[in-house]
């Protein structure tokens, strides 16, 4: 009876969310978003875990293995996370070029 990995996933998500909400710097915000997304990796892998099972790599014989689908999903998740962070950082650079600031509140004041 253990829900600890799920609680950990929720905790990582909320910590990242707090960073996003309280962020005063677009670079910091991108990093917090990555932390948030890490919570989803933990959740996916925790759901696919099976007691006493090994990685789903079968050689030479068959053995109990964890769910390969959530691992494939996590792989997708990580790749998307990396590319989205690159896009956000490029947007932050563009915003800095326009307004001279990476603070979202100061950038909002420019609005025009």
């Amino acid at each position, binding site marked *: 009876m253990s829900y600890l*990995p799920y609680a950990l996933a929720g905790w990582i998500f909320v910590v990242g969310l707090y960073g996003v*909400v309280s962020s005063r710097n677009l670079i910091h915000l991108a990093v917090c978003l990555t932390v948030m997304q890490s919570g989803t990796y933990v959740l996916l892998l*925790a759901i696919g875990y099976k007691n006493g099972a090994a990685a789903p790599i079968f*050689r030479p014989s068959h053995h109990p293995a964890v769910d390969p689908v959530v691992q494939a999903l996590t792989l997708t998740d990580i790749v998307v996370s990396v590319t989205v962070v690159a896009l956000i950082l*490029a947007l932050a650079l563009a915003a800095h070029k326009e307004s001279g600031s990476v603070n979202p509140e100061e950038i909002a004041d420019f609005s025009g």
Partner: protein
Amino acid sequence: MIGFAIAGAGFAALVFWALVGLPDFGHYHWPYGNALNAIATPERHATNVVGITVFDYRGLDTLGEEFILFASVVGVSLLLRKDPEEHVPADEVRSDPIRALGAVAVVLLFVLGLWVVAFGYVTPGGGFQGGVALAGAFLLVYVVGGYRQYHSLLPHSPLEMAEAFGAGAFAILGFVGIVYAGAYLGNFLGLGNAGSLYSAGSVPLLNWATAIEVCAALVVLFSEFLKIYMLPAASWTPEEGPR
């Protein structure tokens, strides 16, 4: 702050409600994962079930993912587009031991990347992981050699072509699957022997297409950001250094 505390408490309650509905940690009982584990090796002669899930059973998801990667790299390239100016490398690695060790590390990392890609459907690894390692080898050229070496090693337009080729090859291999296997991204090659490089049918081709795309995409991203870091010749003075 108070708003976040209230929203956080509400979210925590929702998460707790959702957790109660999940099965106990370690008591996995859904059929899809178990079915894949049972049939992947007999049916596709692949020993890495995660790899075969990515490139065969859920190949369509991976196609979408490839195009997310492609679209975001195109977006970054557009956002960071600069006027063609003379750029001065504002950094230089002068330590000979670091350069020598670095050259060895670049070669080792590149070979490791190729190995991770090549055995992606046999042992842990695959096009995504190996592609990242390959891109890391190129970035290491910049770290131990400086921008000039990095730039001369990586001409820009072939790189962007390689990225488009990787994404396009994946999509086209899907159509080949329609012709020879009756379904988009169907497995159309001989299955070979499980546990050897000749196994898993057309998955090796998709695997290499992904590796080329991921590697090229990440190197394009590095190049775009490094280009920003390199200052135009006019605005850089040797005394001040960059910035």
